[in-house]
């Protein structure tokens, strides 16, 4: 009986250990963490900055290079990059901040520009205000720093460029009697007219787009300096003349056959690489996709995007791109801020190193003056496309994406699908507005 009793006690002890085990473990780790923090106040103690970003060829590579550059000047600082997919970063961030477990976050995270406002406004305490950290924000493209600015506080250090470009197959344009210049600084009306001619003469549509994806529409909206949310962040679908023109233009593109819709990203990429279409319009990171078809070298050209007809319309826009944020829980906030300021916000060398192999274009304007950016690109017929794109980036109209950007994009995506399928504009946009207002009315 005694033995049984003993075994029962042991069992209960085991079960309780199991439950309390995790919490004790985390206590210990936070203790050691705080010890480290106290130690790191002297500047020579070793510091490791952990960073979450997602693309080994692109932003992880850039971060590692930046780490190497910084370590040369500050041998005590090491940068450790942990490859984490963007969706996972968002999920982990949401979970960590809402549950109060911010010690699970790294020192620096990379964030999609489209999610910047949402996360900074929802979790203002989770990120470090970098306004007075010494980072020279005026040396970045203005629209990029604006995206990470909330209530006058600058939270994000801009990284890659999402300036919108139109890539076109010059050989196919030639068959239709056009050159790249015929597609530069034009309006959407001209684009569609010329697109019809290209389609008729060569059988190739100019563009492809993922069905139901709002990306191209948002690109068009931003090019006109307009947005689907007004300055107070309220839904701005109904009676939005620019949105009406954008959607009419898109429907016209689809109906005329100048743009073909595909179902997913893989098909989008293959439609470009396999010459199903004669062009691509997206953020300038699409260059990586275009150049992956090495046999088409010399056949491509890069120009700006068509413009709408409203007052603020331009030939410049942005799609995608990302920025660095310092987490407020970081034990080495000052080191992290200094690191970002000296590398991404101060080192032309960094941008020169990463450009050739990753195509990572900066929004750090001084980098545009470096020699690496002026190298002609054989793939694009010897054109200096990086100079072109850096110039486009400086002209992108500023818009504020807002907290409910993803909700708005989803609502627009659903609406455009319905409209292309034949639903009347006012009905579909009315539904979208109602849906968005519901999500915002929590």
């Amino acid at each position, binding site marked *: *009986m*005694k033995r049984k*009793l003993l075994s*029962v006690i042991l*069992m*209960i002890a*085991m*079960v309780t250990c*199991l*439950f309390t085990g995790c919490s004790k473990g985390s206590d210990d780790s936070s203790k050691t963490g705080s010890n480290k923090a106290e130690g790191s106040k002297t500047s020579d103690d070793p510091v490791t900055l952990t960073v979450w970003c997602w693309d080994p060829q692109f932003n992880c590579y850039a971060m590692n290079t930046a780490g190497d550059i910084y370590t040369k000047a500050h041998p005590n600082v090491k940068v450790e990059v942990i490859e984490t997919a963007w*969706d996972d970063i*968002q*999920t982990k961030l*949401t979970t960590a*901040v*809402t549950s*109060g477990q911010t010690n699970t976050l790294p020192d620096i995270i990379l964030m999609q520009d489209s999610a910047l406002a*949402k996360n900074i406004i*929802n*979790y203002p305490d989770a990120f470090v205000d970098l306004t007075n950290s010494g980072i020279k924000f005026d040396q970045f493209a203005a629209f990029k720093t604006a995206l990470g600015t909330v209530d006058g506080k600058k939270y994000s250090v801009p990284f890659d460029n999402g300036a919108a470009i139109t890539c076109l197959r010059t050989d196919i344009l030639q068959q239709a009697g056009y050159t790249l210049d015929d597609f530069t600084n034009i309006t959407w009306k001209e684009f569609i007219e010329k697109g019809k001619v290209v389609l008729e003469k060569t059988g190739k549509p100019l563009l492809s787009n993922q*069905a*139901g994806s709002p990306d191209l529409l948002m690109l068009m909206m931003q090019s006109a300096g307009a947005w689907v949310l007004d300055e107070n962040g309220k839904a701005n679908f109904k009676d939005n003349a620019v949105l009406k023109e954008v959607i009419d233009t898109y429907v016209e593109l689809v109906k005329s056959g100048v743009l073909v*819709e*595909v*179902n*997913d990203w*893989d*098909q989008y990429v*293959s439609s470009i690489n396999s010459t199903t279409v004669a062009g691509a319009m997206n953020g300038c990171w699409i260059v990586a996709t275009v150049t992956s078809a090495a046999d088409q070298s010399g056949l491509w050209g890069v120009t700006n995007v068509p413009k709408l007809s409203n007052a603020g319309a331009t030939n410049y826009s942005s799609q995608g791109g990302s920025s660095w944020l310092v987490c407020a829980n970081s034990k080495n906030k000052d080191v992290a801020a200094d690191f970002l300021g000296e590398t991404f916000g101060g080192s032309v060398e960094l941008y020169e190193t990463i450009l050739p192999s990753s195509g990572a274009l900066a929004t750090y304007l001084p980098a545009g003056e470096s020699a690496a950016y002026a190298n002609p690109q054989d793939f694009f017929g010897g054109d200096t496309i990086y100079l072109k794109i850096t110039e486009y980036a400086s002209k992108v109209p500023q818009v504020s994406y807002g*907290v*409910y950007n*993803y*909700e708005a994009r*989803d609502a627009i*995506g*659903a*609406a455009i*699908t*319905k409209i292309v*399928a034949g639903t009347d504009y006012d009905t579909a946009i009315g*539904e979208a507005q*109602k*849906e968005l207002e*519901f*999500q915002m009315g*929590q």
Partner: protein
Amino acid sequence: MKKRLTMGKRRKLVSWLFILPATLLIAGMSFYPMIKAFLLSFTKGFGKTSEFVGTYNYQRLFQDSLFKTSLGNTFIYLILQVPLMLLLALILASLLNNPKIKCKGLFRTMIFLPCATSLVSYSIIFRSMFALDGFANSVLMNLNMISRPINWLGEIWPARIIIVLAITWRWTGYNMIFYLSGLQNIDPQVYEAARIDGASVSQQFRKITIPLLRPIILLTAIMSTNGTLQLFDETKNLTNGGPANMTISISQYIYKLSFEYSPQFGYAATISFIVFLLVAVLSFLQMKVGDKRD
């Protein structure tokens, strides 16, 4: 230990002790979060801004068109998929239970094998098979059955049918295994007697197999209903809810509310509880209808 327990009490005590670890684990890992989620469903905001709002979230449900769409979609999957899959599994099981069939093990393995694939990877394979230039379209084009490719995942009903097909492919074998094990418990003499009395194959199936398998059919029906109501991976990866949210499932909407949109955890918990209620009610109904034991 002077006072000895009676035999009965001791047995009870020992059996309780055996149950205890599992009970504690389930209570800690399942029931505690459930209660917390229930409390969460009465709040809005998160962290410091969290506030108690009573039944506000439950009232919001009625104005939420996307919730209604996702609920409708999930029921479409449920109504089309569960009966189809269970019937198919039942037929396959009784075919493969025939002692005269050769290579039974091979066939059983082949039909069960889809269950061993990951939900995400099979969804992606289905997506590429039904792409515009995918396997399905090239086969149909080469057989001259269609003149231009069908946009399977870009149109509402074809997309829904593909999702139903995919789930059926993935789970039929799983249910078949339950039926096969149930069939092992039916005495072959019953079938022999039926054959001698001149019962046809379909009569045997309807009058012997189905009634004797009733408890197992009930079990699989409840499990499949539960599984379909919580459908997530397939819709997320095959269509991502599109076109225009016409294939989105409830779970995917909950995910969107929590992680893609500005988080609304309270409201997401509310919808989770609706799923919980639906599972409870449907299981109860199925038990009432299906369980003929006294």
